[in-house]
């Protein structure tokens, strides 16, 4: 089953004719993703990578009935591209782009919520259900199909963990890279709930970072509602104390932003926390 995407999901690539769009659309197609269309305004009617290109998302969705789109568009145009995807009736919106103004992200997020669109990102690696489909830039060859669900705030770090799992014969159900930006689409909790309800997923790995409060909320949810074993790794354990978002940030977030504090809270919620990413497969195997 996996979550969010399976082998049938039809995907449109926004910005398919750009350098990044071309490279990663190709990689998605090679992985087996049903990339049914690309969108680049002014390039409609052409073919690119064997896929029809449209001038607008509306046309692309009408022609292909795709339900997902992935954005490879420069940051300053991402807001418009995301709104276009939502207006076109997409169900799953993945924004790979880095450097999107946070206010834009906040507004995209709100519009996605208002329209029941699942938004992943921005500044994220996307998602993959091994041997079924990938949306985004997670290197397909490090993945293998299995029953570990991964949800992560980090991109490259997730690859690290996936690879370790694959090497140790622990395949994955779905890996979701949430993105590293302060304001983003879905978070840990949405994914934890989906993994809990996904028959394929037997264990869940949560990859966090310093800052924010997503991990703490995840701890709350795990304590109350998640029955499957959860493992967690937090990056930035040795990071020096840095600037905070003023006192307002402190009032809202308290001291909960450190890796140490996050790991403590996660442990208290019954989550197995590890110090280095390579420990994860070992811990999972211990518990099998």
């Amino acid at each position, binding site marked *: 089953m996996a979550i969010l995407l399976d082998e049938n999901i039809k995907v449109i690539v926004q910005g398919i004719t750009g350098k990044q769009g071309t490279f990663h659309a190709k990689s998605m197609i090679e992985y087996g993703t049903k990339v049914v269309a690309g969108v680049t305004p002014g390039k409609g009617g052409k073919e690119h990578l064997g896929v029809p290109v449209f001038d607008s998302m509306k046309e692309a969705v009408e022609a292909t009935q795709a339900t997902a789109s992935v954005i490879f568009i420069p940051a300053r145009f991402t807001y418009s591209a995301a709104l276009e995807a939502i207006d076109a009736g997409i169900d799953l919106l993945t924004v790979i782009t880095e450097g999107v103004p946070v206010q834009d992200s906040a507004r995209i997020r709100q519009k996605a919520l208002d329209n029941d669109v699942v938004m992943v990102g921005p500044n994220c690696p996307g998602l993959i259900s091994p041997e079924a489909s990938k949306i985004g*830039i997670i290197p397909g060859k*490090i993945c293998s199909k299995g029953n570990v669900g991964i949800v992560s705030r980090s991109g*490259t770090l997730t690859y690290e963990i996936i690879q370790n799992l694959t090497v140790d014969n622990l395949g994955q159900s779905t890996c979701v890279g949430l993105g590293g930006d302060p304001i983003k689409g879905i978070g840990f909790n949405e994914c934890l709930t989906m993994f809990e309800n996904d028959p394929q997923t037997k264990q869940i790995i949560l990859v966090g970072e310093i800052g924010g409060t997503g991990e703490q909320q995840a701890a709350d949810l795990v304590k109350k509602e998640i029955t499957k074993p959860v493992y967690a790794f937090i*990056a930035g354990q040795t990071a020096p104390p*840095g600037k905070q978002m003023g006192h307002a940030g402190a*009032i809202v977030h308290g001291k909960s932003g450190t890796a140490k504090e996050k790991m403590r809270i996660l442990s208290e919620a019954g989550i197995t926390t590890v110090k280095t990413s390579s420990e994860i497969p070992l811990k999972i195997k211990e518990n099998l």
Partner: protein
Amino acid sequence: MLKAHFKDLKKKVKSVFNSMPMLYEIEGKQLFKENKIPTPLFKAYTDSSSIIQFAEEIGSDVMMAKAQALTGKRGKAGLIRKVSSAEAEEYIQSILGRDHGGKPVEIVMLEQPLEIEKEYYLAVMLDNESGKYLIIASSRGGVDIEEVAENYPDEIFKQYLPTAVEPFSYMFVDLGKKLGFEAKTLTSFTNIMTKMVNMAKNRDLTLVEINPLILTPDKKIIAADSKVVIDGNSDYRQVDIAAFKSQRARHTDLEFEADQAGISYVQLDGEIGIISGGAGLAMATCDILEFLGSSPANFLDVGGGADETKIEKSLEILSRQDIKGIFVNFFAGITRCDDVAQGIINASKVFEIKVPIVIRLVGTNDKEGIQILENNGIKAYGEMEPAARKIIELVQGGN
């Protein structure tokens, strides 16, 4: 719930790696002025004549002299003082160049002193959890607001406002009343709130904090301080803000240079320089060096989709740092391993890399990347931990 979280806030970490830079107080107040949020009269100190001019302008011989710094506790550090125009020059010269939070004071602001009837705390922040503007306010301002939050949680008021909503005064009447404003001060307050939210929206500010917001005996409401955090991702559309002096001052020279090249670079004090891609992996790279008994000399994230040039630039920056070794650690997604490899080779042709270097290269186009390195006689590692152990061994020798 609030109470539980306020013990040890001073050292709270909010990522050194974020792109949410703060402005100097005087820059924040320039934005306030632009947006018609009342501030005391103020002026940047340039030389002794500016003191005389300012005294005339405010019609008073007494003024505040405030060192501009990006870290707090200026008062305790003696960097803010009420002075007469006669004393001002000597005091300002005594604080100019003084170190505060690792940076020399470069700018001093002159400000009109205010009579105070009551002090408030006020903040508009773009809240990460909700994706909305979050307004936080208290009538116990002017003091450490986090202590207020701990000791008097009922006197901290919050209000959320969706980013897409146009703010109007009426939306802040309830909040103003909770703070005890009434009649004329209530409408002054709701107007200021409206302007603050509009300013945050129009200028891509992620935090606007005023502590204290002052009520004067003649019932005027004035922003006596400013703490403004901007969104680095919006620099392209807030060009004037991005050019503020504080944006250079928040970096060391090397950091600034890296920033201009689109590289997230933070100087640390360890022995091994690192180059990585992705904040998470870069942090994990720092972490593993520590866990294995060494220490990172820097945090360096080339960002997503880095090309050869950025890799070259990263090596060039490290070459100017006092380090014992270099650990290049990539698990490429949107970045391509052949670009990373080519960047390293290019750099090694331009300048000599004098310290040991260990490269770990996996992910998109890794075969091509490894091939490029091998063609140049360099071996690449496939896993992080063995690579980390190797560079530590090379740096620390047989120890």
